[in-house]
Protein backbone atom coordinates (compact mmCIF):
# COMPACT_ATOMS: atom_id res chain seq x y z
CA UNK A 1 0.00 0.00 0.00
CA UNK A 2 1.39 3.34 -1.09
CA UNK A 3 0.29 6.86 -1.76
CA UNK A 4 -0.15 7.35 -5.49
CA UNK A 5 -0.35 10.73 -7.16
CA UNK A 6 -2.39 10.16 -10.31
CA UNK A 7 -2.22 12.39 -13.39
CA UNK A 8 -4.07 12.04 -16.68
CA UNK A 9 -2.60 11.86 -20.17
CA UNK A 10 -2.31 15.64 -20.28
CA UNK A 11 -0.37 15.72 -17.06
CA UNK A 12 -3.27 17.14 -15.09
CA UNK A 13 -3.54 15.99 -11.50
CA UNK A 14 -6.52 13.68 -10.96
CA UNK A 15 -6.22 12.44 -7.40
CA UNK A 16 -3.83 11.33 -4.68
CA UNK A 17 -4.96 8.17 -2.95
CA UNK A 18 -3.88 5.54 -0.48
CA UNK A 19 -3.99 2.33 -2.49
CA UNK A 20 -2.23 -0.47 -4.27
CA UNK A 21 -0.95 0.12 -7.78
CA UNK A 22 -3.51 -2.39 -9.09
CA UNK A 23 -6.39 -0.47 -7.54
CA UNK A 24 -5.14 2.83 -8.91
CA UNK A 25 -4.75 1.38 -12.41
CA UNK A 26 -8.21 -0.13 -12.36
CA UNK A 27 -10.01 2.95 -11.05
CA UNK A 28 -7.99 5.50 -13.02
CA UNK A 29 -7.08 3.82 -16.33
CA UNK A 30 -4.74 5.43 -18.85
CA UNK A 31 -3.13 7.63 -16.23
CA UNK A 32 0.32 8.02 -14.74
CA UNK A 33 0.81 6.69 -11.22
CA UNK A 34 3.66 8.15 -9.21
CA UNK A 35 4.46 6.87 -5.76
CA UNK A 36 4.47 9.88 -3.50
CA UNK A 37 7.58 9.80 -1.40
CA UNK A 38 7.68 11.45 1.95
CA UNK A 39 9.11 14.93 1.56
CA UNK A 40 12.75 15.22 2.36
CA UNK A 41 13.21 16.31 5.93
CA UNK A 42 15.28 19.49 5.94
CA UNK A 43 18.69 19.26 7.57
CA UNK A 44 17.55 21.99 9.94
CA UNK A 45 14.79 19.69 11.15
CA UNK A 46 16.93 16.60 11.65
CA UNK A 47 19.70 18.59 13.32
CA UNK A 48 17.21 20.22 15.65
CA UNK A 49 15.91 16.83 16.61
CA UNK A 50 19.44 15.67 17.34
CA UNK A 51 20.04 18.84 19.37
CA UNK A 52 16.82 18.34 21.32
CA UNK A 53 17.69 14.73 22.07
CA UNK A 54 21.13 15.76 23.28
CA UNK A 55 19.57 18.29 25.64
CA UNK A 56 17.12 15.70 26.93
CA UNK A 57 19.82 13.10 27.45
CA UNK A 58 21.89 15.53 29.55
CA UNK A 59 19.03 16.81 31.69
CA UNK A 60 19.89 14.60 34.64
CA UNK A 61 23.57 15.49 34.51
CA UNK A 62 22.78 19.19 34.46
CA UNK A 63 20.65 18.86 37.57
CA UNK A 64 23.04 16.67 39.56
CA UNK A 65 25.83 18.71 41.24
CA UNK A 66 28.41 15.92 41.47
CA UNK A 67 27.83 14.42 38.05
CA UNK A 68 31.13 13.57 36.30
CA UNK A 69 32.29 16.13 33.75
CA UNK A 70 29.30 18.33 34.69
CA UNK A 71 30.98 21.65 33.91
CA UNK A 72 31.70 20.56 30.37
CA UNK A 73 28.17 19.23 30.06
CA UNK A 74 26.75 22.59 31.10
CA UNK A 75 28.95 24.34 28.55
CA UNK A 76 27.87 21.80 25.97
CA UNK A 77 24.19 22.42 26.72
CA UNK A 78 24.65 26.16 26.33
CA UNK A 79 26.32 25.57 22.99
CA UNK A 80 23.45 23.31 21.97
CA UNK A 81 20.88 25.95 22.85
CA UNK A 82 22.73 28.68 20.96
CA UNK A 83 23.65 26.52 17.99
CA UNK A 84 20.58 27.23 15.77
CA UNK A 85 21.25 30.94 15.83
CA UNK A 86 24.90 30.60 14.83
CA UNK A 87 26.52 30.24 11.43
CA UNK A 88 27.59 26.70 12.35
CA UNK A 89 23.98 25.52 12.14
CA UNK A 90 23.10 23.04 10.79
CA UNK A 91 26.41 21.82 9.36
CA UNK A 92 28.73 21.66 12.38
CA UNK A 93 27.48 20.11 15.58
CA UNK A 94 28.68 21.28 19.00
CA UNK A 95 30.93 18.78 20.73
CA UNK A 96 31.11 17.77 24.36
CA UNK A 97 34.47 18.51 25.93
CA UNK A 98 36.14 16.04 28.25
Amino acid sequence: MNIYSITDADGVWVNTIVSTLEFAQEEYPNCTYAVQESPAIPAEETERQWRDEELTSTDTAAQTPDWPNRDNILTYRTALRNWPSTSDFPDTRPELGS
Partner: protein
Amino acid sequence: MSNLTDLISAGGGGGSPFPLMVFQQSQTWACPTAMEALVFVIGAGGSGAFNRSNNTSSRSCSGGGGGGCVVSKLTLAAQNYTLTIGAGAQYVSTASGANGNAGGNSAMSGSGMTTMTAGGGAAGKMDSRSTATAGGSASGGTVMNNVGGAIAAQAAGQYTTSGGGGVSLWGSNADGTWNTAATQLQVGVGGSPIGKAGIYASNPEYHSDWTYNFYPNQPVEVTPFPTIKFHQLSSRNNWGSNSTNSSGHTGFIIQEGTNYNALGNSPFTGGAGVSGGTGGAYFRAAAGIAGAGGGGVNCDSSPAGGLSGGGGAGLIIVCPISMGA
Protein backbone atom coordinates in the same frame (compact mmCIF):
# COMPACT_ATOMS: atom_id res chain seq x y z
CA MET B 1 -34.22 8.07 12.01
CA SER B 2 -35.81 11.47 11.88
CA ASN B 3 -33.31 13.91 13.27
CA LEU B 4 -29.72 14.48 14.23
CA THR B 5 -30.08 12.71 17.57
CA ASP B 6 -31.37 9.62 15.82
CA LEU B 7 -28.48 9.81 13.39
CA ILE B 8 -25.96 9.88 16.18
CA SER B 9 -27.59 7.13 18.17
CA ALA B 10 -27.93 5.03 15.05
CA GLY B 11 -24.20 4.71 14.74
CA GLY B 12 -22.48 8.02 14.42
CA GLY B 13 -22.26 8.36 18.16
CA GLY B 14 -21.31 4.80 18.85
CA GLY B 15 -24.77 3.90 20.13
CA SER B 16 -25.18 1.18 17.56
CA PRO B 17 -24.91 -2.42 18.78
CA PHE B 18 -22.74 -3.11 15.75
CA PRO B 19 -19.08 -2.22 15.41
CA LEU B 20 -18.15 0.67 13.17
CA MET B 21 -16.18 -0.25 10.09
CA VAL B 22 -13.40 2.19 9.27
CA PHE B 23 -11.53 2.14 5.97
CA GLN B 24 -8.26 4.01 5.55
CA GLN B 25 -6.95 2.33 2.41
CA SER B 26 -8.52 2.14 -1.04
CA GLN B 27 -9.95 -1.26 -1.80
CA THR B 28 -12.72 -3.31 -3.28
CA TRP B 29 -14.76 -4.10 -0.20
CA ALA B 30 -16.79 -7.27 -0.18
CA CYS B 31 -19.67 -6.34 2.07
CA PRO B 32 -20.16 -9.57 4.03
CA THR B 33 -23.91 -9.37 4.52
CA ALA B 34 -26.89 -7.22 3.75
CA MET B 35 -27.13 -4.29 6.10
CA GLU B 36 -28.69 -0.91 6.59
CA ALA B 37 -25.99 1.60 7.44
CA LEU B 38 -25.03 5.20 7.70
CA VAL B 39 -21.95 5.79 5.61
CA PHE B 40 -19.57 8.73 6.04
CA VAL B 41 -17.17 9.40 3.16
CA ILE B 42 -14.56 12.00 4.08
CA GLY B 43 -12.01 13.59 1.75
CA ALA B 44 -8.44 14.35 2.78
CA GLY B 45 -7.27 17.67 4.14
CA GLY B 46 -5.01 20.09 2.35
CA SER B 47 -1.72 21.20 3.87
CA GLY B 48 -0.97 24.70 5.07
CA ALA B 49 1.12 27.30 3.31
CA PHE B 50 4.57 28.20 4.58
CA ASN B 51 6.23 31.59 4.50
CA ARG B 52 9.74 32.43 5.55
CA SER B 53 10.02 35.86 4.13
CA ASN B 54 12.85 37.30 6.19
CA ASN B 55 11.05 40.61 6.22
CA THR B 56 11.08 40.97 2.47
CA SER B 57 7.34 41.43 2.41
CA SER B 58 4.20 40.92 4.39
CA ARG B 59 2.15 37.94 3.40
CA SER B 60 -0.71 35.88 4.66
CA CYS B 61 -0.51 32.11 4.94
CA SER B 62 -3.65 30.04 5.13
CA GLY B 63 -4.10 26.55 6.39
CA GLY B 64 -5.30 23.82 4.07
CA GLY B 65 -8.97 23.27 3.39
CA GLY B 66 -10.83 20.50 5.14
CA GLY B 67 -12.05 17.46 3.24
CA GLY B 68 -15.67 17.22 2.17
CA CYS B 69 -18.05 15.00 4.12
CA VAL B 70 -20.78 12.99 2.41
CA VAL B 71 -23.30 11.03 4.47
CA SER B 72 -25.78 8.48 3.14
CA LYS B 73 -28.23 6.11 4.69
CA LEU B 74 -27.86 3.01 2.55
CA THR B 75 -29.19 -0.48 2.24
CA LEU B 76 -26.03 -2.35 1.37
CA ALA B 77 -26.08 -5.75 -0.29
CA ALA B 78 -23.65 -8.62 0.10
CA GLN B 79 -21.63 -7.49 -2.92
CA ASN B 80 -18.51 -5.57 -3.81
CA TYR B 81 -18.18 -1.84 -3.26
CA THR B 82 -15.30 0.34 -4.42
CA LEU B 83 -13.78 2.47 -1.69
CA THR B 84 -11.30 5.17 -2.67
CA ILE B 85 -9.38 6.90 0.10
CA GLY B 86 -7.81 10.29 -0.51
CA ALA B 87 -4.29 10.82 0.83
CA GLY B 88 -3.57 13.67 3.21
CA ALA B 89 -1.57 16.48 1.67
CA GLN B 90 2.13 16.66 2.42
CA TYR B 91 3.48 19.46 4.53
CA VAL B 92 5.58 22.27 3.06
CA SER B 93 8.98 23.54 4.12
CA THR B 94 10.99 25.76 1.83
CA ALA B 95 13.72 28.34 2.04
CA SER B 96 11.38 31.19 1.14
CA GLY B 97 7.75 30.23 0.96
CA ALA B 98 5.21 28.16 -0.90
CA ASN B 99 1.60 27.17 -1.11
CA GLY B 100 0.54 23.95 0.53
CA ASN B 101 -0.71 20.87 -1.30
CA ALA B 102 -4.23 19.66 -2.03
CA GLY B 103 -5.77 16.68 -0.28
CA GLY B 104 -7.01 13.66 -2.24
CA ASN B 105 -10.61 12.78 -2.99
CA SER B 106 -12.44 9.90 -1.31
CA ALA B 107 -15.36 8.02 -2.84
CA MET B 108 -17.65 5.03 -2.43
CA SER B 109 -19.45 3.41 -5.33
CA GLY B 110 -21.23 0.20 -6.14
CA SER B 111 -24.25 -1.30 -7.81
CA GLY B 112 -27.53 0.08 -6.51
CA MET B 113 -26.16 3.22 -4.90
CA THR B 114 -25.38 6.76 -5.94
CA THR B 115 -21.64 7.30 -5.92
CA MET B 116 -20.60 9.32 -2.91
CA THR B 117 -17.66 11.66 -3.57
CA ALA B 118 -15.92 13.76 -0.93
CA GLY B 119 -13.36 16.11 -2.40
CA GLY B 120 -10.03 16.87 -0.78
CA GLY B 121 -9.37 20.25 0.77
CA ALA B 122 -7.54 22.83 -1.28
CA ALA B 123 -3.91 23.72 -0.74
CA GLY B 124 -3.17 26.46 1.74
CA LYS B 125 -2.29 29.70 0.05
CA MET B 126 0.64 31.93 0.70
CA ASP B 127 -0.20 35.55 0.11
CA SER B 128 -3.90 34.71 -0.20
CA ARG B 129 -5.07 38.30 -0.19
CA SER B 130 -8.00 38.02 -2.54
CA THR B 131 -9.11 34.42 -2.71
CA ALA B 132 -10.31 31.97 -0.13
CA THR B 133 -8.91 28.50 0.41
CA ALA B 134 -11.71 26.09 -0.42
CA GLY B 135 -12.87 23.09 1.50
CA GLY B 136 -13.44 19.82 -0.32
CA SER B 137 -16.60 19.33 -2.35
CA ALA B 138 -19.35 16.88 -1.40
CA SER B 139 -21.84 15.09 -3.62
CA GLY B 140 -23.96 11.97 -3.80
CA GLY B 141 -25.07 11.80 -0.19
CA THR B 142 -28.65 10.95 0.70
CA VAL B 143 -28.44 12.52 4.15
CA MET B 144 -25.87 15.32 3.97
CA ASN B 145 -23.36 16.77 1.52
CA ASN B 146 -21.16 19.02 3.61
CA VAL B 147 -18.41 21.00 1.96
CA GLY B 148 -15.18 20.95 3.96
CA GLY B 149 -14.10 23.79 6.15
CA ALA B 150 -12.65 26.69 4.18
CA ILE B 151 -10.48 29.67 5.05
CA ALA B 152 -11.70 33.10 4.02
CA ALA B 153 -9.61 35.50 1.98
CA GLN B 154 -7.43 37.69 4.15
CA ALA B 155 -5.25 40.69 3.52
CA ALA B 156 -1.56 40.21 4.05
CA GLY B 157 -0.07 41.00 7.40
CA GLN B 158 3.23 40.52 9.11
CA TYR B 159 2.16 37.55 11.20
CA THR B 160 -1.13 36.68 9.53
CA THR B 161 -1.76 32.96 9.47
CA SER B 162 -4.72 30.63 9.77
CA GLY B 163 -5.57 27.19 10.99
CA GLY B 164 -6.75 24.51 8.62
CA GLY B 165 -10.35 23.83 7.75
CA GLY B 166 -12.11 21.11 9.65
CA VAL B 167 -14.39 18.34 8.45
CA SER B 168 -17.97 19.60 8.46
CA LEU B 169 -19.52 16.51 10.01
CA TRP B 170 -22.82 18.14 10.87
CA GLY B 171 -23.00 21.12 8.54
CA SER B 172 -20.93 23.82 6.94
CA ASN B 173 -19.46 25.14 10.14
CA ALA B 174 -15.84 24.10 10.25
CA ASP B 175 -13.99 26.98 8.66
CA GLY B 176 -10.49 27.79 9.85
CA THR B 177 -9.91 31.25 11.28
CA TRP B 178 -7.16 33.81 10.97
CA ASN B 179 -4.81 35.31 13.43
CA THR B 180 -4.35 38.92 12.40
CA ALA B 181 -2.59 40.24 15.48
CA ALA B 182 0.56 42.00 14.43
CA THR B 183 2.67 40.20 16.96
CA GLN B 184 4.54 36.99 16.68
CA LEU B 185 3.80 33.70 18.42
CA GLN B 186 0.12 33.76 17.61
CA VAL B 187 -2.12 30.88 16.69
CA GLY B 188 -4.58 30.65 13.82
CA VAL B 189 -7.35 28.42 15.09
CA GLY B 190 -8.40 25.42 13.04
CA GLY B 191 -12.00 24.85 12.07
CA SER B 192 -14.02 22.58 14.31
CA PRO B 193 -17.05 20.53 13.24
CA ILE B 194 -18.98 20.70 16.51
CA GLY B 195 -17.95 24.01 17.94
CA LYS B 196 -15.10 24.91 20.20
CA ALA B 197 -16.52 23.20 23.24
CA GLY B 198 -16.27 19.47 23.53
CA ILE B 199 -14.13 18.72 20.54
CA TYR B 200 -11.13 17.74 22.58
CA ALA B 201 -10.34 14.13 23.15
CA SER B 202 -11.63 12.55 26.31
CA ASN B 203 -8.48 10.51 26.84
CA PRO B 204 -7.33 11.63 30.28
CA GLU B 205 -3.67 10.91 29.66
CA TYR B 206 -3.72 13.13 26.64
CA HIS B 207 -5.32 15.87 28.67
CA SER B 208 -3.32 15.66 31.84
CA ASP B 209 -0.01 16.00 30.12
CA TRP B 210 -1.20 18.50 27.60
CA THR B 211 0.30 21.56 29.17
CA TYR B 212 3.69 20.11 29.87
CA ASN B 213 4.27 17.17 27.62
CA PHE B 214 3.01 16.10 24.27
CA TYR B 215 3.23 12.51 23.17
CA PRO B 216 2.59 12.58 19.45
CA ASN B 217 1.43 8.98 19.12
CA GLN B 218 -0.96 9.03 22.03
CA PRO B 219 -4.35 7.74 20.85
CA VAL B 220 -7.08 10.32 20.67
CA GLU B 221 -10.79 9.81 20.49
CA VAL B 222 -13.47 12.28 19.60
CA THR B 223 -17.10 12.67 20.52
CA PRO B 224 -18.88 11.70 17.28
CA PHE B 225 -17.06 8.38 16.98
CA PRO B 226 -15.84 7.42 20.45
CA THR B 227 -14.92 3.90 19.44
CA ILE B 228 -12.37 5.08 16.91
CA LYS B 229 -8.87 5.96 18.08
CA PHE B 230 -6.82 8.39 16.07
CA HIS B 231 -3.09 9.04 16.25
CA GLN B 232 -1.24 12.19 15.38
CA LEU B 233 1.97 10.93 13.87
CA SER B 234 5.28 12.63 14.32
CA SER B 235 8.90 11.83 13.82
CA ARG B 236 9.53 12.98 17.35
CA ASN B 237 9.15 10.75 20.33
CA ASN B 238 8.57 13.43 22.90
CA TRP B 239 8.44 17.15 22.68
CA GLY B 240 9.54 17.46 26.24
CA SER B 241 8.43 19.69 29.02
CA ASN B 242 8.52 23.42 28.78
CA SER B 243 6.59 26.56 29.24
CA THR B 244 3.51 27.16 27.20
CA ASN B 245 1.86 30.07 25.54
CA SER B 246 -1.80 29.29 25.15
CA SER B 247 -3.37 31.42 22.50
CA GLY B 248 -6.64 29.73 21.70
CA HIS B 249 -8.80 26.73 22.28
CA THR B 250 -7.58 24.59 19.46
CA GLY B 251 -4.16 26.09 19.34
CA PHE B 252 -1.30 26.03 21.75
CA ILE B 253 2.21 27.08 21.13
CA ILE B 254 4.46 24.81 23.08
CA GLN B 255 7.83 26.37 23.48
CA GLU B 256 10.79 24.09 23.68
CA GLY B 257 13.92 26.16 23.73
CA THR B 258 13.81 27.93 20.39
CA ASN B 259 11.25 25.54 18.93
CA TYR B 260 7.65 26.69 18.73
CA ASN B 261 5.19 23.95 17.96
CA ALA B 262 1.55 24.70 17.28
CA LEU B 263 -0.52 21.87 18.66
CA GLY B 264 -3.94 21.18 19.93
CA ASN B 265 -6.17 19.92 17.20
CA SER B 266 -8.38 16.89 17.54
CA PRO B 267 -9.70 14.56 14.84
CA PHE B 268 -11.79 16.35 12.21
CA THR B 269 -10.49 19.70 13.50
CA GLY B 270 -8.10 21.77 11.44
CA GLY B 271 -4.52 22.02 12.61
CA ALA B 272 -3.50 25.26 14.27
CA GLY B 273 -1.38 27.69 12.33
CA VAL B 274 1.50 29.55 13.91
CA SER B 275 3.18 32.88 13.35
CA GLY B 276 6.57 34.00 14.43
CA GLY B 277 9.62 36.03 13.78
CA THR B 278 12.12 35.04 16.42
CA GLY B 279 15.57 34.78 14.93
CA GLY B 280 16.94 31.26 15.04
CA ALA B 281 13.59 29.81 16.09
CA TYR B 282 11.76 27.01 14.37
CA PHE B 283 8.02 26.92 13.78
CA ARG B 284 5.79 23.93 13.18
CA ALA B 285 2.09 24.17 12.51
CA ALA B 286 -0.21 21.40 13.62
CA ALA B 287 -1.24 18.72 11.17
CA GLY B 288 -4.85 17.89 10.45
CA ILE B 289 -6.21 14.55 11.57
CA ALA B 290 -8.94 12.53 9.83
CA GLY B 291 -9.64 14.72 6.82
CA ALA B 292 -8.86 18.07 8.39
CA GLY B 293 -6.53 20.65 6.89
CA GLY B 294 -3.13 21.48 8.35
CA GLY B 295 -2.20 24.87 9.71
CA GLY B 296 -0.22 27.56 7.96
CA VAL B 297 3.08 29.08 9.07
CA ASN B 298 4.00 32.71 8.61
CA CYS B 299 7.47 33.64 9.76
CA ASP B 300 8.04 37.22 8.82
CA SER B 301 11.50 37.68 10.17
CA SER B 302 14.59 35.53 10.25
CA PRO B 303 13.55 32.16 11.65
CA ALA B 304 15.62 29.05 11.25
CA GLY B 305 12.76 27.38 9.43
CA GLY B 306 9.79 25.20 10.07
CA LEU B 307 7.06 23.04 8.65
CA SER B 308 3.48 23.73 7.71
CA GLY B 309 0.81 21.33 8.91
CA GLY B 310 0.09 18.35 6.67
CA GLY B 311 -3.45 17.37 5.81
CA GLY B 312 -5.29 14.55 7.49
CA ALA B 313 -5.96 11.47 5.39
CA GLY B 314 -9.45 10.71 4.17
CA LEU B 315 -11.51 7.84 5.47
CA ILE B 316 -14.79 6.01 5.09
CA ILE B 317 -16.85 5.01 8.11
CA VAL B 318 -19.68 2.50 7.84
CA CYS B 319 -22.04 2.60 10.81
CA PRO B 320 -24.41 -0.39 10.65
CA ILE B 321 -27.94 0.19 11.85
CA SER B 322 -29.15 -3.35 11.22
CA MET B 323 -27.55 -6.45 9.78
CA GLY B 324 -28.88 -9.44 7.92
CA ALA B 325 -31.76 -9.80 5.53
